[in-house]
């Protein structure tokens, strides 16, 4: 009833192949995007930007990146933290070596550099598969973090190996550094994330995405019907790393402001993002957003609820929160093993036939 498509006739191929063929979906998504762009910036505070929205958007972008590789192309990767680090350090080196460079160029180049690194580490995927590939990407994670700890050129010979972002502006607005206003950092991140999410959505349903899914579903069959595994897998690695690299650059330059490799880009980041796409839904762009929201916002929500709402001790509520997150993850995976995105899809179908299910 709420979701009736009756009366929505499609008379052209174009409208039939639209991104959101159902009108309700379309209006809803447009509404959310407009709200995010036109309403939130006027009410955003430091807390909302730095503690909630920026991490959510940045992790969502990283999750889209990993989802392209793991969800669409079926190549399990545990090197996400390392690729985030590559993006972050690339942006740091570019910003400090070329202070005049436009920030958007910096971010795109950081993504491209990460894509090259991703291709390099993706080469073994032609020979090794499944869990064995996960081990190979795990090696890249440790190698990259070790490299950024070891070679002082990457952190400009600073005494502690810590990198700190210099203040940079775009169109006269300060985007990085401590004086940047939350509305600007938020809008900048939101713009990049929206553009790349849209691109990913289109890529996933186009020629490239279909060949990724063919490789994922059965690589031998895909090869037989004429999909070249070398090209397809490496494109997946490149695109995925490009996304993750941009997320890493945003994470360092816009959100954290300073970082050290071991802590900010450790193995736990790789797992965190992998959990995001598993819980959100493998092979779904919407799922990447849902997973990121769940893994980033839920702990903070639980914490604030317990500490501010119930007045519990922060340390106690931290322990409870860790357990609750575990319980929730198990709960959602039992209810729907295919993730939150699938849950949403089922809900839509139920809404469509409500109140007369058959």
């Amino acid at each position, binding site marked *: 009833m709420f979701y009736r498509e009756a009366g929505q006739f499609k008379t052209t191929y174009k409208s039939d192949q639209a991104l959101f063929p159902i009108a309700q979906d379309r209006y809803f998504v447009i509404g959310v995007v407009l709200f995010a762009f036109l309403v939130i910036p006027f009410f955003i505070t430091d807390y909302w930007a730095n*503690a909630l929205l920026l991490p959510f958007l940045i992790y969502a972008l990283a999750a889209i990146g990993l989802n392209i590789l793991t969800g669409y192309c079926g190549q399990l990767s545990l090197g996400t933290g390392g690729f985030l680090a590559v993006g972050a350090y690339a942006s740091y080196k570019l910003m400090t070596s070329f202070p005049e460079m436009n920030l958007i160029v910096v971010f795109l180049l950081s993504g491209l550099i990460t894509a090259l690194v991703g291709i390099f580490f993706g080469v073994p995927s032609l020979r090794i598969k499944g869990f064995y590939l996960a081990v190979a990407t795990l090696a890249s994670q440790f190698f990259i973090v070790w490299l950024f700890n070891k070679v002082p050129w990457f952190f400009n010979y600073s005494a502690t190996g810590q990198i700190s972002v210099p203040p940079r502006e775009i169109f006269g607005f300060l985007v990085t550094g401590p004086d940047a206003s939350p509305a600007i950092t938020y809008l900048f991140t939101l713009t990049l994330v929206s553009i790349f999410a849209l691109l990913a959505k289109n890529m996933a349903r186009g020629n490239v995405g279909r060949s990724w899914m063919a490789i994922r579903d059965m690589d031998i069959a895909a090869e037989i019907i004429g999909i070249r595994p070398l090209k397809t897998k490496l494109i997946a690695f490149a695109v995925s790393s490009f996304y993750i690299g941009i997320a890493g650059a945003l994470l360092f330059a816009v959100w954290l402001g300073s970082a050290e490799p071991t802590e900010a880009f450790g193995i736990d980041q790789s797992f965190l993002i992998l959990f995001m796409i598993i819980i959100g839904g493998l092979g779904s762009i919407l799922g990447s957003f849902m997973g990121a929201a769940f893994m980033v916002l839920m702990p903070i929500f639980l914490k604030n609820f317990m500490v501010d709402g119930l007045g519990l001790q922060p340390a106690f509520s931290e322990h409870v929160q860790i357990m609750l997150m575990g319980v929730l993850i198990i709960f959602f995976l039992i209810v729907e093993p295919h993730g939150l995105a699938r849950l949403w899809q089922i809900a839509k179908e139920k809404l469509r036939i409500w109140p007369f299910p058959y």
Partner: protein
Amino acid sequence: MHVRGKEGGIGPPDNIKEDIKDMKLKQLALGLIAAVAITGSASAYELTVPTMDYRTGPYAPNGIPFANGFSDYFTLLNERDGGINGVRIKLVPCETGYNTKKGVECYEKTKKVGSGALFYSPLSTGMTYQLIPKVTADGIPLYTMGYGRTSAANGKVFKWVFNVPLTYWDGATVAVKYAGEKSGGMDKLKGKKIALVYHNSAYGKEPIRTLQVLSKKFGFDLKLLPVDHPGQEQKATWLQIRRDKPDWVFMWGWGVMNQVAIKEAASIRFPMDHFVGVWWSGSENDVLPAGIKADGYKSLAFHAPGADFPLHKDILKYVYDGGKAVDPGFKARVGEVLYNRGLINALWASEAIRTGMNIHKTKEPTAAMVRDGFEALDVSEDRLKELGLPGFTFGVKVTCANHKGPGKVAIQSWDAKAKKWSIVTKFYQPMDDVTGPLIAEDSAKYAKENNITPRTCK
């Protein structure tokens, strides 16, 4: 004035019943909200002190005693003296887990609580690096006692950051001084081997630069052995030490890493009296797991251990027996090294708040006034005695240009039989001729990167 406002919604006490009958529930609710709002805003100004604790995760063994000492001192001021200069303190706890990402969330969440946070002490060098630009933009003093960015000692560049009473670079020079003294003179260090076992993070890497300069100066051989977070896996590191047989091992460790390192050192029978930790690697829970074998382990220190001071008696009386402690189960451990560290951190910070209030002659200081207080901080040994800690540590004095204070360091030693730490040397002067140029160089670099013009100090 506000008393009338408070009663306004409900009416005078004698006809309260009739009023309530007449009044609709909605009006009553509105009145109550107004009353709360009015009393809330008029109800005394409180000094807001966020405590960025970590009582969870791999750093909790060290985070808990420190957090308890820090909170207990402020609670004591509230219970015994009614606050600082008669203004009560409101502690705002936030759990960071020694994680910089959670630290950002905590900072943003607590900075506007009440009338605004007066200062931050994150007890994490990584978080300090994160917060330095933020507090500078927001105008909140950052007090990193004996940790954080060493070059913040240069007050001309780092207006909002204080690391009184000492820095890691002071510590590194004193550790070398001590090694030299024990070897029979600084010239005897030539050709000796010193290994640095360090937490592979901004914190652990801080002393490296100074030690490199010192190794050139005195001709010893420096070996760097990083240990990755969280530091539970150190077999390879200690195998290397066993093979290389360094004459001295220095350690910059934190959390679980400390106890694992001391246990590993014991298992390869490394002589404990040649194993020197920084002041963050020398508390009871670092050495206890290694048992009797940890006997004689040394660490740097800038204050005394133990609970024999008048202040501790007051804390037990007012805070623990008064039922006001954050962590009541901690009573038996009051006086541990890191507990005392938390106390002295809170003490110096509260004196800074007091100084700021006195300078500006106000009962409602802002963060900027507290910063002025930090910059005029002067806690002499006599003042320490008045505050209940006679002979606890040396006197400190901060100036506009020097945010690190005197930087003196002593060596403490662990007696495994008595299960007690005790200071075994005098307080050494650091080698300011070595650290001075390094501080100038590093702070100039920061100023250049962030377009800061160093201010002039009178």
